[in-house]
């Protein structure tokens, strides 16, 4: 490949001029300018200000009286990093996100594969019902789930009592036990994530040439072999992309635990996002709150780096 590219080097001098002129064309920049401005205003500025706050000491008094606060270096960070509770929350956030991502991507994939096999009208029913789930705001979905598992009037306890013999779930509280509580929250996250994943992956599956699959079957491959050798290689880039998105969403978990715990989450139900919010807005520790948020972003970038590498690899392969 290298050998092929070398000879026309002479021509580079000729083609360079028009190429550079094309680069100076203002239209694309003008077109992207509004987006950049909006992003700068909505994302870059708050992010920069948050980073600045994380190196400062700015109190509520400063806020009320117009004080500028003072620089404290990395004091906020060292305070957090030496707090064992922070590390508990970090581990918990990663663990919960990992479970959510794995379960939701797998379920999404299974539903997508199922959609491929069912008859047309069943598929339409599936798509419509998933669209409805997708359209439901997180806040509302969380309220609905919280009501379902409510101790005093929830339908889930009643149903378990009716259906499963020999157990007593009357007055059972789902949030006393950490594992049960987080299971409810994870179920809710997965339930909300599956529609997007299933529909995206189903769209990806339609790109898998049928004749390839049929040829594999003719050659004697079972369903698992067909999936592994034919479907998966074509679907993989898409799976990587939706997994990446899921990681971003699930690492920023906030609404579900926060609302499920009636806006007063116990320490056991803190995620990193909730921790940062509680520090900044409940306790008015804007600086530690900002520092936690910055650390969350860094952590997320760290986790993402793995996936980003994977994505670039796929890009190279194409």
């Amino acid at each position, binding site marked *: 490949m290298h050998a092929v590219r070398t000879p026309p080097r002479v021509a580079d001098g000729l083609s360079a001029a028009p190429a550079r002129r094309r680069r100076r064309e203002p239209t694309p920049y003008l077109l992207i300018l509004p987006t950049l401005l909006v992003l700068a205003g909505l994302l870059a500025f708050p992010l920069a200000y948050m980073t600045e706050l994380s190196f400062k000491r700015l109190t*509520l*008094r400063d806020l009320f009286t117009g004080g500028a606060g003072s620089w404290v270096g990395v004091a906020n960070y060292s305070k957090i990093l030496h707090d064992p509770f922070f590390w508990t929350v970090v581990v918990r956030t990663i663990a919960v996100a990992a479970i959510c991502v794995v379960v939701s991507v797998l379920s999404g994939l299974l539903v997508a594969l199922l959609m491929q096999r069912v008859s047309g009208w069943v598929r339409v029913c599936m798509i419509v019902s998933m669209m409805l789930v997708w359209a439901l705001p997180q806040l509302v979905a969380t309220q609905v789930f919280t009501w379902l598992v409510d101790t005093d*009037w929830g339908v889930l306890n009643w149903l378990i009592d009716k259906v499963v013999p020999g157990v007593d779930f009357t007055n059972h509280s789902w949030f006393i036990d950490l594992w049960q509580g987080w299971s409810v929250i994870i179920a809710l996250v997965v339930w909300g994530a599956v529609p997007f994943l299933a529909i995206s992956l189903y769209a990806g599956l339609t790109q898998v040439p049928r004749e390839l699959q049929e040829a594999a079957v003719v050659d004697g491959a079972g369903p698992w072999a067909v999936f592994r050798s034919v479907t998966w290689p074509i679907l993989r880039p898409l799976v990587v992309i939706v997994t990446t998105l899921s990681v971003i969403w699930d690492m920023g978990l906030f609404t579900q635990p926060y609302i499920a715990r009636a806006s007063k989450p116990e320490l056991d139900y803190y995620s990193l996002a909730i921790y940062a919010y509680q520090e900044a807005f409940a*306790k008015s520790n804007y600086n530690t709150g900002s520092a936690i948020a910055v650390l969350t972003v860094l952590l997320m970038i760290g986790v993402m780096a793995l996936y980003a590498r994977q994505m670039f690899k796929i890009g190279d392969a194409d």
Partner: protein
Amino acid sequence: MKRRIAVAAAVAATLLGAAACGSSKNTTTSGNPLDGKGKTLKVYLMVDAQTGWKDVVDAASAKFTQATGAAVDVQYQQWANHLTKLDATLAGSDVPDIVELGNTEASKYVFNGAFADLTSKVNTFDNNSTWLTGLSGPCQADGKTYCVPYYAGARVLLYRTDLFQAAGLKAPQSYDDLVAAARKLQSAHASDPKFSAFYLPGKYWYAAMAWVYGAGGSIAAKGGDGKWAGTLESQASEQGLQKWVDLTKTYSKGDPTKDENDQDAVYAQGSSAMLYGNAWESGAVQQVHKDPNDPNSAMVDTKVKGKVATIPLPGLTAGQGMPTFLGGSILGVAAKSGKKDLAAEWIKDFTSTASMTALLAKGVLPNSTALLDQAASVKGLEAAAAAAKNSWFVPNAPGWADVEKSNVLQQMLVDVVTGKKTLDEAARAADAQIASTLNS
């Protein structure tokens, strides 16, 4: 109709105001800095005023406008997350002139310079020498006064008269009576797994702390070195807590991880005999809006309509009521306000004896002990007025609101009630957090 109520209230207010001593000097104002022509006061009041006593607000504003010429723009706020919004507003330059806060929220704002100093004007407010200390305490810092008591609420025992009668019980006169009644009621309804003789949700810290103070304990104390220390692990505090935990675990079948937000709805379903709540909750459990999302919809009766009575909760010390948390609201003038004198004048009109008397009729307690006896003669307020005479209040520390917002006490209670920690472990953990929060 509203206008007529307002006029009637104003007339009644004037008559009563004249009858009460010492308020007449207020009627003539000093004039010069109070010329408000062309100016508008921006007032943040909480939504309770809008739903409960908007006519009292309007009457005070009308009187104020007549005297000063300034207009009043009252903006009603929702409680949920109102502090987050307020912080952002106060950080800007276009601030409200007057702000209402819950009394437990006040010290954070008082100590952080959000409110203007009203010390020189205190003597001009009605009843300032008899203000309820649970309301005026958080307004003080360094010997100065930064806000004004507005109204109060006290918690009482709600009980089902029909269930008590069926079990041959009378309203409990002592704490032992209460526990005995709970035991009898619980066994009489043993067939109903949802029946709570005393519904007490696990995160209801206003209730639990009443037991702590009732046993002679406290939440936190300031030492000689000026440092705060949590005192929940003290013997008295733990004794009180233990009694509350025993009652909750034995006689409350609700979710131990809930707070008191749902308690009226649970009680209204009819399978609880006793409830600890604000005096107005007695109404809230008996009647609800047909459409909960529409405050203008018709009221419908619940299962417990006409079967609920209130008394002061009997205390742990014989012959004394359980100290009630004195909840309530205060009014402050924003430090950044450009119309501080006018703002103070409006607060004066709104917290006058006349306005307070009008508030009594709405079922809330006035801001002064001098008016509590009057409150005791208002139907439905008797128990609350009696309970309010023996009250407790949260530690008056600048960082108290942060302890509350970070759910330290709720966490402790849930840990104990659900058996995750022993009472002593949970109390020690809470004390450590209280100390670190209040001393930071």
